């Protein structure tokens, strides 16, 4: 049988896949790389068919399930939940329970924040610094919802609280849009995938950027001066989860995979590939040495306390955000 994974790039490193297949010789693993939006779009188009296990972030499940009915409830008894970090498990369950059924369990978590080349941008600390004229033409960001939220925080707003009042949220978005349009002249380019960001950063074409932490860790490996910086407004934290598509056909294999990747020895391999911290107890300790160093270089305990977990997205917000992003993209800012 085949286990069709719909997951993030690097969330299924070849070593692990091979190892899994050796352990379960009758299961073939087939991996499709995706992101939150595409996962939803894809599963929507297939009506929840075509994949056996998906890994959306914890905040992107509730609304999508309500609207498109693309997942099926998990059988928690088949998952080795004991190993999971209780706080994260509770948080995810809370976010993804519909009609008493749980639709997701956590896998790994990480943050979105900033990264900077220390020697060139020593004082970088806030989302707003991306728009600092001092770094004109030397910063980058991804034109996705993360930067909208980060900028909102930097403007003193709490967007997550505004989710309950979409009109208010629209006001915030409008302000954020103005700010980011103004900021456009300051940035070099919007990055689209980890790849172009790495290239720009490593080559020195830019000195700072909004980033996933994992990308920053990877670059830290190459250049010790490039570090992840949790913004002072708080890094945005996400938890990528496991969820079963509604028409998944290999549930057993899916559970096997879940339990497999949560095993400590595999967690290290996984984190080595993803740069994210597993949602298992002691997940941080299971990081490979280099990543551990990078995390330690980036985070203080205060930073960890200051994490802002993505809040559940209510229906309609994606559309509002999408339009705002388009507005920013289309504006001619220089």
């Amino acid at each position: 049988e085949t286990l069709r994974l719909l997951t993030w790039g690097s969330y299924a490193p070849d070593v692990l896949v091979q190892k899994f297949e050796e352990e379960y010789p009758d299961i073939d693993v087939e991996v499709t790389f995706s992101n939150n939006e595409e996962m939803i779009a894809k599963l929507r188009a297939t009506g929840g068919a075509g994949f056996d296990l998906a890994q959306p972030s914890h905040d992107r499940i509730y609304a999508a399930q309500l609207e498109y009915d693309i997942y099926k409830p998990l059988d928690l008894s088949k998952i080795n939940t004991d190993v999971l970090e209780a706080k994260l498990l509770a948080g995810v369950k809370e976010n993804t329970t519909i009609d008493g059924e749980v639709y997701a369990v956590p896998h790994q978590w990480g943050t979105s924040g900033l990264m900077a080349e220390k020697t060139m941008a020593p004082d970088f600390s806030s989302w707003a610094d991306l728009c600092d004229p001092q770094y004109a033409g030397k910063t980058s960001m991804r034109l996705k919802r993360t930067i909208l939220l980060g900028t909102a925080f930097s403007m003193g707003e709490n967007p997550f609280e505004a989710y309950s009042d979409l009109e208010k949220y629209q006001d915030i978005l409008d302000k954020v849009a103005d700010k980011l349009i103004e900021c456009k002249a300051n940035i070099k380019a919007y990055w689209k995938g980890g790849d172009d960001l790495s290239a720009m950063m490593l080559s020195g074409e830019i000195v700072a950027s909004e980033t996933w932490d994992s990308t920053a860790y990877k670059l830290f490996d190459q250049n010790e001066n490039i570090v992840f910086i949790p913004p002072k407004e708080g890094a945005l934290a996400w938890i990528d989860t496991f969820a079963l598509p509604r028409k998944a056909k290999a549930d057993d294999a899916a559970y096997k995979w879940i339990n497999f990747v949560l095993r400590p020895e595999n967690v290290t391999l996984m984190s080595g590939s993803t740069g994210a911290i597993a949602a298992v107890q002691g997940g941080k300790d299971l990081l490979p040495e280099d990543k551990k160093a990078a995390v330690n270089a980036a985070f203080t305990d205060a930073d960890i306390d200051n994490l802002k977990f993505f809040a559940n997205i209510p229906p309609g917000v994606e559309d509002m955000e999408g339009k705002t992003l388009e507005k920013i993209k289309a504006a001619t800012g220089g």
Partner: protein
Amino acid sequence: MQKDIKRLSLILLFAPFTLWILLLVVLPHIGMVILSLREKVAPRVYEFGFGNYLEFLHEPIYWNTLIRTGSMSLLVTALALIIGFPIAYYIAKIAGPRARGGLFLLCLIPLWVSDLIRSFGWILLLRETGVISSFLVWTGLIGTPVEFLYNDAAVIVGLVYTVILFMIVPLVSTLDGMDNSMIEAGYNLGGNGFTVLRRIIIPYAMPGIVAGCIVTFMLTAGSYLTPILLGGKNSSWFTEQIYNQFITRFNWEGGAAFGMLLLLFTSLVIWLGLKLSGQTLANTVAKS
């Protein structure tokens, strides 16, 4: 009996054609039209209406992007024609018979790899620390590296590169069919190079030019990867917005409306082009 066989074979031949056009082109587009006329009023609740189209009209971002896509596509088409025509002419009329095949094959080179790899190649060439910039620094022509990527010029270069083949191929085939003595007659009767080009070669090549322009324009307006990968922070492309509607905003209804709008818009441009040049679709695109 002969008649029956004829009728039967006509029906047999019609079947694949009908299945293809009906199931894969006509019905899907009707489906798109229907979808685009559904307004979303609440999760899983829809109403019939023109809201998705009105949304487009009311939001300058969208039609600005459409107009930008259209005008850049026209620019790319024009550039492809201007750059490609001399090449096509060279292949069809000046190169020796043996060189001709070779050059024609060389023209097909961009087709050997996907859009993605082509763009990938351009990125490696154009970026600030890329091959061209480094080369120019090395030669001393420029002092510090220059960013050639992430701007409209890069998009245009990339698009022209991608589509020029579709301009050259129909041009070569029409010019090939042109009797050399027609050009010689043009000179012999007193025309200079310019007159001959304007009054004889270009009018003769018109079906090829129009065919090339149509295909080039459609490919450009419908392209996705090149503008995304090479474009800068201001470079929206309408297909990107369609993609966004579908994928990031989960707004299939809006996306369908946008798709129809792109199709209508490009068809309109082509219709105008055909009217202005006095050609028809059947004697241009279909011939190449």
